[in-house]
């Protein structure tokens, strides 16, 4: 049974995996690791702070590369999760 935190971490991994197709594996992991309150270790992530804010910051981090184009990649990634995350759990920059 997944907790909400697990779902957020899954979302972050999914976004990182999708961004990897655009910018490469090394860079995508480095970008994700730069997000505050997020620990990246051995292909897993661990959220230390507010998960919704961490997810928002992740999207913003990638947006700093290619702008809206990067955000769209993140949105596509979230769509793959289906309805696992409720609408109220998704930050504004991913809607």
């Amino acid at each position: 049974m997944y907790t909400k935190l697990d779902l957020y971490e899954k979302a972050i991994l999914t976004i990182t995996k999708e961004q990897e197709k655009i910018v490469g594996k090394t860079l995508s992991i480095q970008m994700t690791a730069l997000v505050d309150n997020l620990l990246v270790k051995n292909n897993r992530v661990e959220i230390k702070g507010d998960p919704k804010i961490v997810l928002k910051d992740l999207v913003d981090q990638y947006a700093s590369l290619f702008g809206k184009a990067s955000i769209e990649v993140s949105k596509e990634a979230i769509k793959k999760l289906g309805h696992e995350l409720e609408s109220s759990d998704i930050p504004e920059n991913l809607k």
Partner: protein
Amino acid sequence: MNLMSILKNTTFRLLSIVFAIYTLAWLYLNLINPWNESFNNAFTDSYGIIAGIGGIAGFSIAKKWGGIKSVVGRSLLAFSTGLTFNFLGQVSYAIYFYVYKVENPYPSFGEIFYFGSIPIYIIGAWLLAAASGSKLSLASYRSKKIVSILLPISMMLLSYSVFLKSYEFDWTQPILIFLDFGYPLGQAISVSLAILTFYLSKGTLGGIMKSSVLLIVTALIIQYVSDTTFLYQTFQDAWEPAGTSDLLFTISYFLMSLAILQFGEVVDKIGAGKKLKCTQN
């Protein structure tokens, strides 16, 4: 893009010095000491070194962006290969001139590189468009879909009308016919993709990479103008070494190389653990 950080880059410094030397040389040859045959030939046979520097640097930068495993990596590999091919094409022509004493030996072995760079640049531009969000733009706007179809067709028709309308076929030279058609039509597709990348990315492309992407687009457009000028002058038997087309090629090689180096700066910055400023569209 942080100007100060790229100024510290050794490859950028080398590239800038070489570009400045060639620009000053061109000004000297065209404004102060017009028509000095040996200097003009030396200029024409060597400015491709700028493309060589950019191409070689670009391969390692492409690897940092994921190489063949990522869209941006593949795009940078394509542009780096294109630059390297342009350099090797010039080396080939220089060998013809200095070893075999043949000036402007079109078509020749060098076409493997010069013509080979066209499909490579097309692939690079296509991938760059994908990274810039053009797919989203195409999906959202019907008008953009129409432009995406009409622009390449229009450019090819324009190239045909300028270069090929009165073309006289010599079927004893099929390779020449292939190249005479292939160059203008292939370049028309390449520049169309560059223009479309700009057009389709408006509204989606932002962030710190926007300027680098637009720099590549500009370089491709200038290269198209260079190629067109060269072809036109060649067909009119009016091409001269160290002329306008050579200067334009020099500029396009420099801009393309500079853009690739900027991609390198960003990936190094991220690798060093520095956050990028969030600058969306």
